[in-house]
């Protein structure tokens, strides 16, 4: 009897999913994603899934920087704005096909991200957080004041993305744009951390001086991390632009940056599945609380005015509880469940 998982070839040892149960889980997840819109066939759940998908791409991007490379960033919202505005301007003003603007926007955001990553050479931790906060403010200031390019005051209206003469940005159709890109992002990121680039990122996170001693060019790799991270963040921004057909700066404020940090902390730092869990959690929790609040409307007389405050308070409370009970995030909870069933029913 085999008492563990043994790999008899390099190929199976190097595989992304190394056991049949892992492959089964992934298969089930993909099946769920593929079947979901056909089963629910309602716009609201599909819309929520789209929000989760876009947030997952953004969260994976941020996780590459914060979770894997250890560089704190408060500029997430602004980098998303760069992606969204680039995609929007290219489509609305220059007539570039919408599908082409998505990779261009991601590349432009990568460049901008790398530029604002330069202070990371000299700054660490909280100091870097403040420097990226400056990036957030500067970029948003430019967006709202560079009237000739961004439209400044006015929201930037993006013509709906068309494919075969049909608009693609309905909830159902855009689902098929977002989720394959989520898959691609996850796959690329998973493989990134199997290359020497990714390992260098992790080395910098764990001990930057040791990494430098080992011959890693810390500055170059930090900039690369900023660039790669911003690439995905810009991708998320570009998707928002095409999905919502309108770009407004109020979507990309510092609150967005903090929200994404919260996503990856709650989901799990340095983890792709954690990014997905965090994105789903931070999207669904307010929706859940709002619906509980709506269900309670009129149930207890005189309580209606308190409901919005209770919603806000429970939002904070749930997050604090999750962080106290499981500081390593939802990813760890998932890990514990997997471990429990891996050994079940003889968990000793």
């Amino acid at each position, binding site marked *: 009897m085999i008492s563990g998982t043994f790999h008899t070839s390099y190929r199976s040892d190097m595989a992304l999913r190394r056991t049949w149960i892992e492959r089964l889980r992934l298969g089930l997840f993909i099946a769920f994603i593929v079947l979901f819109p056909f089963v*629910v066939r*309602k*716009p*609201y*759940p599909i*819309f*929520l899934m789209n*929000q989760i998908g876009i947030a997952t791409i953004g969260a994976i991007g941020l996780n590459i920087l914060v979770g894997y490379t250890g560089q704190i960033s408060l500029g997430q919202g602004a980098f998303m704005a760069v992606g969204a505005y680039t995609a929007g301007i290219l489509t609305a003003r220059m007539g570039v096909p919408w599908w082409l603007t998505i990779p261009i926007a991601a590349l432009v955001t990568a460049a901008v991200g790398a530029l604002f990553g330069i202070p990371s050479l000299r700054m660490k931790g909280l100091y870097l957080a403040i420097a990226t906060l400056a990036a957030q403010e500067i970029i948003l200031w430019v967006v*709202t004041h560079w009237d000739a390019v961004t439209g*400044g*005051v*006015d*929201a930037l*209206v*993006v013509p*709906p993305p068309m494919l075969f003469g049909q*608009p693609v940005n*309905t*909830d159902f159709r855009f689902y098929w744009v977002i989720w394959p890109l989520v898959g691609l992002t996850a796959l690329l990121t998973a493989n990134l951390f199997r290359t020497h680039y990714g390992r260098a990122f992790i080395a910098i996170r764990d001990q930057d001086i040791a990494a430098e001693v080992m011959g890693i060019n810390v500055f170059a790799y930090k900039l690369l991390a900023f660039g790669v991270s911003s690439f995905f963040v810009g991708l998320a921004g570009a998707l928002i632009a095409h999905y*919502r*057909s*309108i770009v*407004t*700066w*109020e*979507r990309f404020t510092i*609150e967005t940056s903090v929200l994404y940090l919260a996503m990856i902390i709650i989901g799990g730092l340095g983890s792709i599945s954690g990014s997905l869990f965090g994105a789903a*959690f931070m*999207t*669904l*929790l*307010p*929706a*859940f609380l*709002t*619906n*509980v*609040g*709506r269900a309670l409307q009129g149930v207890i007389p005189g309580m209606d005015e308190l*409901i*919005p*405050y209770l*919603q*806000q308070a429970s939002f904070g409370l*749930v997050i604090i*509880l*999750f962080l106290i*009970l*499981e500081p390593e995030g*939802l990813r760890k*909870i998932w890990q*514990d*469940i997997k471990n429990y069933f891996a050994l079940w029913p003889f968990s000793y």
Partner: protein
Amino acid sequence: MRSKWLLVLLVVALAGVLAACGGGDKATETTTEAIKVGAIFDLTGPTSDVGKPYAEGIKGYVKWLNDNGGINGRPIDLRHADYAYKVDQAEQLYSQFVQEGVVAFQGWGTGDTEALRSRIAADQIPFMSASYSANLVDPKVAPYNFVIGTTYSDQAIIAIKWAMQDWAEQGNTGKPKVALVHHDSPFGKSPVEDAKAFAEANGVAFMSLPMPKGATDYVAELTKIKDFGANYIIIHTVSSPAATFVKDARAQGMDAKIINLNWCADEFFIELAGDAAEGVYGVQPFTPPSVPVEGHKIPTEWAKANGKDVDVHFIQGWYTMDVMTAGIRKVVEQGKEVTGPNIKAALETLTNYETGGVTYPITFTPESHRGNLGSRVYQVVDKQWTQVTDYITVEP
């Protein structure tokens, strides 16, 4: 370990309830003839101070309407929730309410109004909000947005018109100098271009200045205005920075007359600015309760009976819902199906709709959704807004 299972349970419960809500069975419940209207309010976010009375106004109107027979017997089913001025939340709620079958929507601020603009056009949902930006009035770019307040641009033009009038009445010759200070945001910048064009066309010297975010005083801005020699200062921001600005202006002994546009011409401004508020003018499309008119009667009585406070924002919410209802009522009376496109068409036939003196008569046409072309000028006297002029109008 037990605590972790608790968390797992929580996650599962969360997913379960969401799936139940997502099922949206409510959408098919058409046993009653209720007309569903969606609404998002800011009750806990950064604009909640004015968002709350506005929300009370909308909710109050719907309750009052339903208690008095609804629209030809059909009640309005208001689907509403707080979105805390978060764009994501606004979109979530919008999507949910549309699935539940709402035929019209009440928004709130610039953020959600702009973010939903393309979507409401695609979904054909008539939309009103408390954002009176002039770029929402052209049906070619915003076909389903209806603006019931005088736009910020028009308010600024009315302020300049009044300034010219007042300047002449005071026995001065020539033209006054006007400065416009504004919130540093799309909301604040929105009237600048139009006001400038109007001032220049009338030979009025004009300057505009953004109020820096988070400033604790406006001494630097006031120095610039003093150097410019402004006789009139138009303030377009929200109450709290406006109060700080006015206090600073008084402290510096500025003798220029100050005119607040609607978001700072309210009761909060008087409360925050205290004695400094005395003598400040305001352009306000909605008649404040301190100047009683016929249209205040029903909301004031309803509010008294239900223990709500009445301020200008309550009235504003009440009549925004009233105008939307007027459109829906037309559709019902024509015997047509109550749908977004039908409500839009009905609203576009609304001509000189009377709000009992609360606003200038409202008119929408298929070419223009700029419903309100006039505002009165008010002044703070003894901690109350009092009427100074009758309606000053702008060209259609």
